[in-house]
Structure formats: structure tokens, C-alpha cells
């Protein structure tokens, strides 16, 4: 397995609450990993550990067998669940600030804004954008510089069907370019045609992980990724995660 990213025995506690419990995952280079799980399962916390936002209580995150450094994150693209930008600054100013932090210039930003269809409103203040536009701006910032790893936290939330399709097309293009994608989502149907690998987090533990095709053969009676997810969630109520993953 040509893994680009490894989460090794990640545990995160917030006081007495265990958000992540010995999470071990490998992400293949060029794959699209759909990280599924209910609210509070620990998906965003896991992404936080990768992105340097959250310090794991124990365990490590490795990028090509080495600890992830701050400078490595310049080659990551990140779309947070709630896009938070500077509301009194324009689309262009916000984009340029974050693009420059990652070492990219205005031409790259212009290209990505055009790609997501926001260049025509580049002088509009962020406070005047709709949720969909904000989501696209977040995506444009993340896409700057052709990132090797794209991390998207609930990217499909609240999108209308047209925007959803547009986003799926962009993500498909990124996959074809060779980028590795990590997508956490509740909208399981939206990643069904995109994901090459699936990881299911339940109560901070990995309930199942593997290639999507492999999961399909493991659950032949389930027609869709969503039904596979529900089957695994049902099983996990009565069994230990290791037994399911095995």
C-alpha cells in the first residue's frame, strides 16, 4: 500500500470525554477517503489533529512516514465545516491573504476563483456572500497551488443540487489530477461515486475501514454506501470495532 498519510493510535481526550480512541488509519496516495460517522463521532477532531489545530493526547500523524510539520501543511488544502473568513474584507482580499500564507500568488487565486465561478464577485465583501458562495470561496482558497492533499469537512452541507454537482465535478477533477482527498460527510450519497476508500467512525473509534470495493464485497446484500454504513452502525452496537473491521 502506497500510503501518503497515517494516523497511528490517535487518542484525544477533552477532560473526561474521549473524542478519539486509538484511531488508526492509512490513506493511500491519490485515493478519496470518505470519513463517515454521526455527529460527535470525532471526524472533525481527527482532521484537527492532521491540520495542527488539535493536539492528540497520544498517537501520531505521519505524512510519508514522518511527523507532519507546519510547513507541510502549505501543500494541504482545507475546507472547514463552517467557512470562517474576515467579513469586512472582500472575496479577493480574503483569498489573497490565505493564498499568500501558503505561498501562492494572485494569478493562482484568480484562476481558482474563476474555476469556482466567483471571480465576478471578487470585490464583494464576504459578509454579503450567500452560504453557497462562501463555500465556493473556501474551496477556491483550498484549491490554490494544486494541493497534494485536500481535506474537506462536511463540504456538501447546505448546498443546492446545482452547487452540489459543481462541487462533485471539481473534486472529481482533483482526483483525476492525482490529489488525495479526505472528505467527511453526512451526505453519504454525495461521495458514493467519488470515494475509493471508506472509514467509518463511531463514538471516536474506527468501526470499519478499507477500499470501497472491498466493503461492497463484504456487504453484498447492501446496495449503496449509505446502507453499508447503516449495517455497520447497527453491528457496532453489539460488537467490538475490531470484529467488524476484521
Amino acid at each position, binding site marked *: 500500500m502506497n500510503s501518503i498519510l497515517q494516523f497511528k493510535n490517535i487518542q484525544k481526550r*477533552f477532560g473526561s470525554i474521549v473524542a478519539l480512541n486509538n484511531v488508526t488509519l492509512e490513506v493511500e496516495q491519490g485515493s478519496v477517503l470518505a470519513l463517515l460517522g454521526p455527529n460527535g463521532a470525532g471526524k472533525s477532531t481527527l482532521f*484537527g489533529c492532521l491540520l495542527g*489545530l*488539535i493536539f492528540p493526547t497520544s498517537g501520531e500523524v505521519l505524512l510519508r512516514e514522518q511527523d507532519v510539520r507546519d510547513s*507541510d501543511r502549505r501543500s494541504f488544502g482545507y475546507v472547514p465545516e463552517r467557512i*470562517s*473568513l*474576515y467579513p469586512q474584507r472582500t472575496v479577493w482580499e480574503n483569498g489573497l*491573504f490565505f493564498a499568500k*500564507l501558503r505561498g501562492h500568488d494572485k494569478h493562482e487565486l484568480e484562476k481558482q476563483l474563476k474555476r469556482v465561478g466567483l471571480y465576478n464577485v471578487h470585490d464583494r465583501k464576504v459578509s454579503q456572500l450567500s452560504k453557497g458562495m462562501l463555500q465556493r470561496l473556501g474551496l477556491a482558497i483550498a484549491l490554490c497551488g494544486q494541493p497534494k492533499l485536500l481535506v474537506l469537512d462536511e463540504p456538501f452541507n447546505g448546498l443546492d443540487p446545482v452547487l452540489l454537482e459543481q462541487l462533485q465535478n471539481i473534486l472529481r477533477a482533483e482526483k483525476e489530477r492525482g490529489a488525495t482527498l479526505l472528505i467527511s460527510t453526512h451526505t453519504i450519497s454525495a461521495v458514493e461515486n467519488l470515494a475509493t476508500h471508506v472509514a467509518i467512525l463511531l463514538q471516536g473509534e474506527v468501526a470499519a475501514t478499507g477500499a470501497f470495493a472491498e466493503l461492497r464485497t463484504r456487504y453484498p446484500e447492501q446496495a449503496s454506501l449509505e446502507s453499508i454504513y447503516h449495517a455497520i452502525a447497527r453491528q457496532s452496537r453489539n460488537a467490538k470495532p475490531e470484529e467488524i473491521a476484521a
Partner: protein
Amino acid sequence: MKTALQIACKEFSDRFRSGWVIACTAVWLGAIALTSLFGLIQIGKIGWQGYERTVVSLLNLVQYLVPLLALLLGHDLVVSEREDRTIALSIASGVSRAQLLIGKFIGGCLALAFPVSLGFVIAGVVIGLGAGRSGLASFIVLAFSGLGLGVIFLALGLVVSIFCSTRVQSLVAALLVWCAAVFVFDLVALGVVVSTRTNEATKQIESVTDAMHVNAIADMHQAFESGVDNVPQAKPAATKILFWTLLANPVDLFRVINLPVTTEARVPAPVIPLAFACWIALVLSAGFWRLRRLDL
């Protein structure tokens, strides 16, 4: 360093757009001009005072206003971005926590230094044209030490901002820091002197309150007129206590630098920039210690 400067530029630009820098310049310039014009109104004099008298009149204003401005500026540098979640995108973009801290600090320093320096320069030129150049050096010392005082309190505000989890908490904590540094510290220091060294207390109080600012009736202008010889001199033991007391509070340090007539407990000139630098380094280290452990 490039990343830190990008953050600093954005921070300064945000403050400029918000009107903070302009408002601060206006307030500061007005305060200096009014102090210089009306500083001697109690003795029936109106008009531009020279630099030396302006410095004496400005001491209280600088020691109260500059720390307050700096704390108000610094208290939301980090906590506001945590509340708004914008900090997450910066960190996820490869910005290290040290770069974030330095960038925020430099940006805050620029936003503070711009109005304070501009105020001093404009007022300095006007005073010079109106009242002559005599005592310019003391005015320059006041400007630089005032700026240094502001930078220390900006760093304190930044650290408060890192330690607090909401803007409101941070504002309250910043105001408490201001009260502690400007009022409480000196009261406690005097209380300690009185309670532990009763025999020498009276003379020491005279000495200490002259260098600090608790004694509301201390007439600094009279001291300015009468010179060093008429100022009560402290005993060596009191001097030593006073020396360390002055180093422990940047406001007192600032005051002792600028008093036209000081007590025996002078802080040696080379120690002053060192003390300012130590304060900034210590405070920023505390901020970095906390920031590198903080889940964002």
C-alpha cells in the same frame, strides 16, 4: 518571518480600516496639545509650555492612557479569531503558532506605535515652534519610554487574549491587568513597606511615593521648580527595595525614567532597555507556552 509579516500587515490594515488608528491618533494628539496648552492652568498660566514642563504634565496621562490603549488593542488579537474560527484556516495553511504570535505582536505594535508616535511628533513640532527647543531630550525620552511601556502592555494584552476563551473574558482580564499595574501594585508595595519596616516607613513612603504615583498630592511641578536638593532622600535599604519594586512594574519603571527629579533609587540607564526587553520577552514567552498547547 515572511509569514509573520503578512499577518502583521493584515492586523495593522484591519485596525486602520476599523478607524482605531485614526481615532487613537486624534485622542493622543489632542491629549498632548491640551496638556501642553492648559497644563499650568491651576497656577493661572495658559499657553504652550516648553518640553520639560510638558513632560511633567504628560507623565500621568502617558502612564494611564498608553497601557490602557495597548491592552484594549491587544486583548482581542487572538481570542477574536478563535471565536470567529478564522485562526483555524491560518494554522491549517501552514502558519506555525510562533509565526502567528509574532505576526500578531508586530501588527499590534504597528497599530499602537503609529498613533502614539504621530501624536508625539506633531505635538513635539508644535511645542518646539511655540516654546523653543529647551528640554527636547526629556520629551524624546518620554516618547520612547511611553512607546516601550505601550509595547509591554500590548504584549500583556496579547497574552491575556491567548489565555482567555471569549472576548468578554479577555476584556475583563485586560482591565484587571491595567488596574493592577497602575493602581493596585503601588498600594500593595507601599503596604508591604509600611507593615514590614515600620521604623523607616515614614521616610520610605516619602521616597517611594515620589517615584510612583499613589501620592495624589505630590506636586511634581514643585519638584520640577525646586530641583534635586529639596527632595527627601531615601535610606540605602529603602533604595534597594525601591529598585526591585520599580523593575517589577513597567509603569513604575516608566515613571522613574521620566521624573525630572528622582529619588536616590535611580535605575541605572543600561538596565532600563534591558528591563523593558525582559518584560516583553517574558510576557511573550508565557503567551507562546500557552498557544503551543492550545486546541483551536
